[in-house]
């Protein structure tokens, strides 16, 4: 781990540094552009900290291995891109229903399928929420700089540990591969959250009985609390049930433990929104262009502002609703054909016009393109 100070590093490297600071000691992954550096750097750094790195046979196995690693007590992470993210969906659902904390990094590239392996895209936004089958909690964070990648990787672990749920760090190739100044804080200045452990005796442990906060304390395998974990719908003891009532209760609890606590991890940035009539909504790499576009529009005497969600899932409904009340028009700029747009329009559509600015050719949307898209409509 790097000590206090600053250094020029890549987004993917910052992700590993953040993970190590958060306490990651287990990484399982499979090579895929543009996320591979995360695996490479993890393989170099983990053994130096007594941690474990393993290159699995595919992404299905990588996702399974980190769940196993986490259940055995180590904070665990994997990193991938679109095609691998598709394969991980199966066991992301398993982590969700078994409430095993882990972090999944997706450095997005062009899709579908093999798509544009070396180019940025934001086409996995909906997949990050709905990729695995069934109703489930979804948490995804989208950093837009090297510094933020570090900080939000730490936060991703904290949310995963606190709420016992898989958390997705949804990067894009722009952020993963850019190099910027990264300021390292002293490790003691970083908030680190660890999973809640049972305080009762093993014989009194009911593995999936939640506390008042809806989260059951989690024992690691090998700590003397022998219990059962299954991907089948289960009751509080962790054993399968066909009870309609218990099934509904379980799924509602795992969804609500995240959904009802959204204020705890609602991260976003507001830029020149005070008097903004035109609001650009953008996240990840595109938000950097959007910020420049706001400044350019301001110079043209257009009252523009930026709302940048960092927590992309759960959807920041309250904040988007507030923004839309004061706006005349919202423009959602993203490197897909309008995925986050659907959610913004659902919430903001009743208050103002919601437009989209999209690009899916493997290039980042430029400030100029945003300015032109908005100027052309004025």
């Amino acid at each position, binding site marked *: 781990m790097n000590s206090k100070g600053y250094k020029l590093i890549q987004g993917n490297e910052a992700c590993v540094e953040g993970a190590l600071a958060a306490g990651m*000691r*287990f990484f*399982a992954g499979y090579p895929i552009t543009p996320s591979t550096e995360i695996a490479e750097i993890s393989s170099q750094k983990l*053994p*130096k*900290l*007594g941690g*474990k790195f*393993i290159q*699995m*046979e*595919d992404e*299905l*196995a*990588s996702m*399974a*291995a*980190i*769940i*196993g*690693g*986490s*259940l*055995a*007590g*180590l904070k*665990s992470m994997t990193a991938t891109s679109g095609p691998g993210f598709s394969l991980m969906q*199966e*066991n992301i659902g*398993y982590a969700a229903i078994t409430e095993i904390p882990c972090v999944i990094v997706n450095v997005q590239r062009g899709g579908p399928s093999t798509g544009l392996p070396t180019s940025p895209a934001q086409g996995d936004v909906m997949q990050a929420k709905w990729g695995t089958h069934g109703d489930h909690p979804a948490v995804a964070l989208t950093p837009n700089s090297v510094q933020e990648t570090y900080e939000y990787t730490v936060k991703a672990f904290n949310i995963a540990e606190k709420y016992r749920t898989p958390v997705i760090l949804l990067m894009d190739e722009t952020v993963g591969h850019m190099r910027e100044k990264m300021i390292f804080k002293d490790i003691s200045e970083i908030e680190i959250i660890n999973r809640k452990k049972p305080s009762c005796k093993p014989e009194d442990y009911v593995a999936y009985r939640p506390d008042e906060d809806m989260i059951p304390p989690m024992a*690691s*395998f*090998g*700590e*003397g609390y*022998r*219990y*059962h*974990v*299954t*991907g*089948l719908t289960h009751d509080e003891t962790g*054993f*399968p049930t066909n009870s309609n009532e218990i099934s509904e209760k379980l799924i509602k609890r795992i969804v609500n433990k995240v959904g009802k606590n959204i204020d705890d991890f609602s991260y976003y940035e507001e830029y020149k929104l005070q008097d903004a009539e035109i609001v650009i909504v953008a996240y990840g790499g595109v938000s950097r262009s959007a910020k420049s576009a706001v400044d350019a529009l301001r110079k043209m005497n257009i009252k523009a502002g930026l709302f940048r969600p960092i927590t992309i899932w759960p959807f920041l409904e309250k904040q988007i609703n507030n923004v839309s009340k004061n706006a005349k028009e919202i423009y959602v700029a993203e490197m897909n054909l309008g995925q986050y747009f659907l959610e913004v329009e659902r919430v903001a559509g009743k208050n103002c016009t919601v437009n989209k600015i999209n690009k899916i050719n493997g290039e980042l949307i430029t400030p100029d393109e945003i300015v032109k898209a908005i100027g052309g409509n004025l």
Partner: protein
Amino acid sequence: MNCNNVTKEYYRVEKLPHIWCPGCGHGTLTNTVVRAIDNLKLNKDEVVIVSGIGCSSRAPGYLDFNTLHTTHGRALAFATGIKFANPKLHVIVIMGDGDSSAIGGNHLIHAARRNIDITTIVFNNNIYGMTGGQYSPTTPYGDFATTAAYGNIDKPFDLCSLAQGAGATYVGRGTAYHAPLMQKLIEKGLQNKGFSFIEGLSVCPTYYGRKNKKGGAFKMFSFFKDNCADIKTVEKNPEKGKNKILIGEFYNNSKPEYIESYQVIIDKFQG
């Protein structure tokens, strides 16, 4: 330990009776796993049993250890994470034939290749039982299944050869009829520092048996009794192996174990 005590000590008695059909071989095979653990006096808190999806994979739910019922085919990948993260744990994986060699085939060969210290036991009943009798990668050529209405034209895997070829350092085969042998193979597998693969031939009278007119559970168990030959006997007298299913210990070798090799790296580079 006698039968009642084994049950009380190692089973989650309140979860019984099990879901397996009358005549199924899986209960007997599960018991051989438990008896092997008992004989080796492993600490229950340090035993982890991981399974995938299917009839065999319901076994861990009845057993009083750290138990993990995972997704179809992925048990070994989960187990790899557990064992690597906490090498003190004794990790046992129970899978079925479809689970381990169709959907999980890739994980099987790679776990074997790494020679990670996991003991894998495959309950092979030559059929997908949980979904109602479809052909699996070990259904014999020409046999019938609900998805092989005109006879199976797939050629079956020899799971033990597959595991050995992929790098497993301990390989053996028993059957639900040859329970003492099965138990011994599992014990030796657990003592092997590396990837151990034990195939337990099971019977599925409900689906495979009925579809192929095998005559019910008694006849199917009797088939094992009359048609298996121990490799040691056959090595001395090859005639005795003619048209028989080979059982016994097939391979026992030592190679660097994955986690020990990784520990060497940690010891060298840890600051």
